């Protein structure tokens, strides 16, 4: 599904930094999920094979911690980027956080959510979404929440000697449960709900590679984010946001990477289902 002819210019939705960070997230998240789940589901034969493939539980542990560091770095990078964005494009936090392109949920999201449910059941038209839909905002804050919860408990487990100077020994057990179950939530959510919402939705099937190329056809912007399109047209800034699409070889490479990530993600979902339904102890 090429993104239009080479002569057509496309709308740039994500900056290079965003795309790099998302790719980094994919790699670190998959690494964390694979290495972490081998331990969580150590009672399955899968886990034993995987653990050996990953080079043993100690190597898996190093991979897990390295990936955690990468993910935390991305998290910090994003916060820094927010500061830069505020300085360059918005001027004030108020404009950034309460403006139409804000990630923060607002009253309009509630209205759009209600309108969407109506549309689902055939009681109204499809709402005219803005730059960020409510489910995209939900995904965004799920990652925020996840990194905070999993990251903090993960550090406790990484440095138990340090943390037990402040906390009782049983807190390590509590941290283990939180870390492990929150991770299950994160992997489960990303590999099913997020995959569906962005890639497997019938109208986008099999995948939407906007997050990798940063570009989306103008028609798609008009259809999916009409409010943003209109605002851009109204402000006359649409022209600034257009760029040439990538050559086919780049697109192919991106697709290969995305397919690989999807495949790993779905395998993990199958493994989790198997572990929970058939091998749970």
């Amino acid at each position, binding site marked *: 599904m090429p993104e239009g002819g080479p002569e057509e210019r496309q709308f740039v939705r994500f900056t290079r930094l965003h795309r790099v960070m998302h790719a980094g997230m994919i790699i670190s998240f998959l690494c964390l999920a694979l290495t972490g789940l081998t331990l969580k589901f150590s009672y399955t034969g899968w886990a034993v094979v995987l653990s050996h493939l990953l080079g043993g*539980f100690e190597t898996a542990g190093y991979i897990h911690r390295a990936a955690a560091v990468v993910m935390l770095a991305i998290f910090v990078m994003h916060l820094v980027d927010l500061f830069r964005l505020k300085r360059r494009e918005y001027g004030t936090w108020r404009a950034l956080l309460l403006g139409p392109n804000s990630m923060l949920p607002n009253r309009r999201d509630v209205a759009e959510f209600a309108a969407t449910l109506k549309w689902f059941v055939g009681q109204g038209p499809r709402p005219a979404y803005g730059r960020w839909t409510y489910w995209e905002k939900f995904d965004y804050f799920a990652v925020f929440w996840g990194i905070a919860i999993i990251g903090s408990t993960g550090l406790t487990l990484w440095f*138990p*000697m340090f943390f*037990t100077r402040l906390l009782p020994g049983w807190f390590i057990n509590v941290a*283990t449960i939180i870390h492990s179950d929150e991770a299950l939530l994160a992997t489960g959510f990303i590999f099913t709900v997020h995959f569906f919402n962005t890639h497997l939705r019938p109208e986008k099937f099999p995948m939407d590679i906007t997050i990798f190329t940063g570009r989306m056809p103008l028609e798609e912007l008009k259809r999916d984010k009409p409010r943003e399109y209109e605002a851009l047209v109204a402000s006359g800034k649409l022209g600034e946001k257009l760029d040439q699409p990538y050559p086919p070889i780049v697109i192919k490479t991106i697709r290969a990477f995305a397919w690989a990530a999807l495949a790993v993600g779905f395998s993990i979902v199958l493994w989790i289902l198997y572990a929970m339904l058939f091998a749970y102890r």
Partner: protein
Amino acid sequence: MAPAAPAPVKTGKRVTMFLGLFIALWWTLTQAASPVPPPGATNTASEQNETCLACHGDKGMTTERAGRKVSRFVDAKKFSASIHGSFSCTACHADVEGKDLPHDAPLAPVNCGTCHAGEQEQHARSLHGRAVARGDPLAPRCVDCHGNHEILPVKNPRSAVAPLQVPFVCGRCHREGTPVQRNRPIHQDNILENYSESIHGEGLLKKGLVVTATCASCHTAHLILPHTDPASSIARRNIAATCTRCHAQIEAVHRKTIKGALWEKEANVLPACVDCHQPHKIRKVYYTQGMADADCLRCHANEQLKRSRDGQSLYVGTGELAKSRHAKVACSQCHSEVNASHVRPCETITRPVDCSSCHDEIGQQYVKSTHGQLLGRKDPNAPSCVECHATHGVLGKQDPQSPTFATNIPLLCARCHREGQKAAMRYTGRQHEIIEHYTESIHGKGLLKSGLTVTATCTSCHTAHGVLPRSNPESSVNANNVPATCGRCHHGIQEQFDNSIHAKRAAKSGKELPVCSDCHTAHSIRRADEASFKLEIMDRCGRCHQEIAKTYFETYHGKVSRLGYTKTAKCYDCHGAHDVQAVTDPRSHLSRANVVATCQKCHAGATRRFAGYLTHATHHDPRKYPLLFFTFWGMTALLVGTFVVSGIHTLLWLPRAFQMRRELRAEAEKAARSRAETAVAPPATPAPEENKNA
């Protein structure tokens, strides 16, 4: 066996006169020399005895004992003639004193030891006394040899124990066909017959030499002990002393065979008298071993010699014999039924060789063992001594050529115990492919690959001669005995184990407790530092400690172990292996005093707080671990809630999404058609379907 006729008398009258004089003189002497009478022996003794004899003097007096009529008649004449004739009845039957007469209850057996303390003490130590103590019904007491009321002085020729009578007293039990000879382990045959034909028997019975050796001369009267007992008068080291009591200076006539100096300096290296002069068969002729064996080999050196009954070869290889452990043992020492007075001495042999004649203790073990029991039942598969030790070529277990040398034992036992062989076929237990497993085990590798002859072989655990099944409480591999059996080599471990909670003594528990083999297995024992052993041991602990093992596997330590890595703590890393104690025990590695140090073995710098980590935590027990339980269910609620909401959202979305997909496709097709017609595609026109031309 008739008593030999007295020596022929030529001048009857003179002898009678001499005999009369002799008896008269002797009688006065014995009367004068009789011991001081005991307290009861006063003038009133005879009066008292009258009272007893009022009843017991009646020849018809009987009582019932165990349903049998027993005579209670006491011959007053014989009694007064006896050596105890001057005593009152109560001197021996002390318990009748003060009783109403006639007494109803039978009197207690007389205790001869009141006066004859020394003799009684010897008897108690002897074979006979020990048999009495065991309650052996065949065991002889004082009265069985000495009689009771008519005991005569030993020098009286009519005494039951006078030299001339001794062979007959002993022979009452120790002759062919008696219950004693048949049912008790007595390794000599035809004792009385052989004795009567020996030089001693001839002297006593044919020539009336009362100074010649009787049974009691060699075996002692009261302290009769088996030759295997070092205290016995016929023990190898004492036999020379026993013989030289009569044969003083016998060394003077043995100069040809024995160097004089050895008699004093190294008496222990000399052959014992009986090595040449067989007991009970001693004759005047001069014996050497070589001669005796040479006699046998006249026939048995012939390779063609066969037994007429079944054609079995009777050839005895002298080369084989010379190299064997028994090189210096004469044929007749094993083939003991031979009779030198026959032309073919072996024709009197009726039984196979009984090795236990010399190897007495081993024989007793063997008889009780499974092998011995099978032989006792005449099972054709039963292994006797020769099955393992061979016959004339028997070698010591220190000889590498011997089938019983350490490195040869597994193959020796495998002859029957390998899968498919006769012993393995009748075996119904759980141990299979024993030989194969043993060969791969640490013991088998140590023995067969590293050549360590001190490694445990089959016999180290099962014993060589007392092999018994595990179910038998006497067995060396019975659960109760396993720690001691393993402890014979692994003593340090046994010491630890014996004090652990797993040891019966320490645990004071009725539950079935593990022994060495429950964790280490019996035949497949591996090195404890092998990864597979380390991982399997947790499941072994879990066989009994099911719940606690399950919770262990819910923690980090357990999960890593499940993945097949040994680096994280396993049961024994924290609880100890052989010295495991209840965690409440101050000696436990996990007691309050020790737990931090135990954690520090892996987690250097661990603190008491750190040691508060719950190593057997489970989030399934709300009472024990409420915090974990509620954390888990809180997280689960969050997880389920999120998935339910987003799941419903997605499902509701699906129909609309499919609808959109259909519309987009239709528009794309329409656009493609119109483009083909017009061949114009203005990029700025708002027609979203145009680019959807995939």
